[in-house]
């Protein structure tokens, strides 16, 4: 018989508990806020109205759930195809090689080490991350993975980040983990030391200075 991803029985979920949890984050839907009117110099009328709208998303991770449970346990789970042998992290629950015909892959534990493939030093980012600026977003090849994964590299002096530097994976404290990518980050391998300062590193350091200042003001 063809192996498919199993569809769990809905009876296995505790809906009542989930409903109670959702109530703690009340949704407001469309909520009227403000109106503002005026006329441009040429007499053209304008009206602006502010209306609030929100939603609470539930992400159901389905076949990816072992990956998320792994994060909660402080493990990185990747996938391996039994047919072609390709290993990927982030996981792919079906193989990407066309000849493997979407073979359902096996879970494997990844080592907590990797090589930094490329990176950027962020001087601006999404609202939720502004206070962490400047931070390094790095694409890292974890273990034998044929894919790179993006995550934050925690490094004291971001301008020292280098391609091909070895990194280790660090996890948040167990009580803080949520089964999401934000449970872990990269740090330079303690055995690694950066190459000396050079013109580019000096330049990046200089570009970072106003960012540090801006974030200091933001935090006040």
């Amino acid at each position, binding site marked *: 018989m063809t192996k498919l991803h199993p569809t769990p029985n809905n009876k296995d979920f505790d809906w009542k508990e989930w409903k109670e949890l959702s109530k703690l984050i009340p949704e407001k839907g469309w909520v009227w806020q403000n109106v503002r009117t005026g006329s441009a110099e040429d007499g053209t009328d304008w009206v602006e109205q502010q209306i609030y*709208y929100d939603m609470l998303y539930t992400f159901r991770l389905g076949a990816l759930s072992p990956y998320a449970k792994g994060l909660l346990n402080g493990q990185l789970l990747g996938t391996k195809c039994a047919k072609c042998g390709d290993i990927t992290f*982030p996981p792919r629950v079906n193989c*990407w090689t066309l000849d493997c015909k979407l073979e359902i892959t096996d879970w494997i534990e990844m080592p907590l080490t990797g090589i930094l493939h*490329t990176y950027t030093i*962020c001087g601006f980012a*999404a609202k939720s991350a502004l206070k962490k600026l400047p931070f390094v*977003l790095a694409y890292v090849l974890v273990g034998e993975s044929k894919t790179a994964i*993006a995550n934050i590299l925690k490094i004291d002096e971001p301008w020292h980040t280098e391609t091909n530097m070895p990194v280790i994976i660090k996890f948040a404290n167990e009580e803080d983990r949520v089964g999401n990518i934000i449970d872990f980050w990269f740090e330079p391998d303690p055995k690694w030391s950066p190459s000396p300062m050079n013109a580019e590193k000096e330049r990046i350091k200089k570009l*970072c200075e106003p960012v540090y200042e801006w974030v200091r003001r933001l935090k006040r």
Partner: protein
Amino acid sequence: MPEQQQVYIAGGTTTPFDYPVNLQIEELVANTIRQLYKDVPNFHLKDVRDNGMVVYSHFSVHFAHQLTSYWILHDHLGLVGVPHFRIDNGGNTGGSALYAAYALVRAGLADVVPVIGYELMGSVSQSKGSEFIAIASDTRYEAMLGANYTNYYAGLARIFMEKYGLTEEDFAEIAIKNKNNAMATGEKAQHYRTVGKKLTIDDVMASRLISYPLKKWDCCFMSEGAATILVCNEKYAKQYSPDHSIEITGAGLSSCTIRAGDRYAFPGWTEKYGEGYPGLGEFAACRHSAEVAYKMAGIDWKDSHKQIDVAEVHDAFSTSEFQIYNALGWCESTTPKQFIRDKMPMMEGEIPTNPGGGLIGYGHPVGATGLMSAIECYYQLTGLIPREHKSTDNEVKDAEVGLVNSHAGTGTSISNFIFKRV
């Protein structure tokens, strides 16, 4: 049975691109159609009703605070009964909508297909807007990091920069080229409207760090606006614009991974281009879609820069425009470093790129962007620059063959078209 037809563009226009534009979508789009009635006097929406379809090009439901917002447009234009659908393909929405119209006319399923693109992005704060756009990255892995597309692109640029020995200044050349070209385009271009002066390499280098190697002036800005382009068969092209039509002689559309990290060694690319390509620094979907379009138009990938007179490409960032040159094959007979230092994509160079200003100079209201690029290229090939631009400083005289590029995600969907003067 419908028969295969040659495909033409007989007209096109954009609204001014700005942030915000203070108009709703139906007024914006009505403005483009009324302008088309003026520019192409023989055009009539009744032809669309009788022998056509409408393809709407719109990216984000989140920005529109409205599902299926093109339903509002369609009956506002007086159209009922006429087939319509909307294309969303990220930043390549405009290119993909043009591709859909091309396919419809090519297949003989429709004779006149206006492609109508629009985006209002000022409905939310700029930071919320960047966050909305980042929802097009894999929300389970990438968006949760607090990064947005500028950060992803900067990461891809870093490895490209290192691979080819490029500097921040090399990228800044591209940024100011596009900003300054937009000064000749005039009041429809966002840079002209909001900054209104030429910039220098020093300005770019001194601007705020966004994500190394990108600074503020290396990036396009959030914009609003609309564009309509008139795709049709030969009969209508002759009827509408006997002196101002171009033929679409090549059209390619390709795809790559949603997460840039997944293209490090993707089997589909390794089989096609060998180990190590594209990696994270190259846009394989751009190369592939260009190869398809070039082949249709009889252009050789490696010699393409000699056979194309003008190009409008998707410069969301100065760095990505550079990566696009490479993917289009323009650096094959030289090196990326030499290509820019020889000023090849400048107005005076061999292949002027983004003379209209591109996204950095003209603006990037997502659903309208690819169409703006196509319309600017159409103007260049039909001698309409003096009519459409503030000055002819950015006119590529006697251009015969043009390239239009539209680009999405982190290079996740890319289209390329070859236009030919008729």
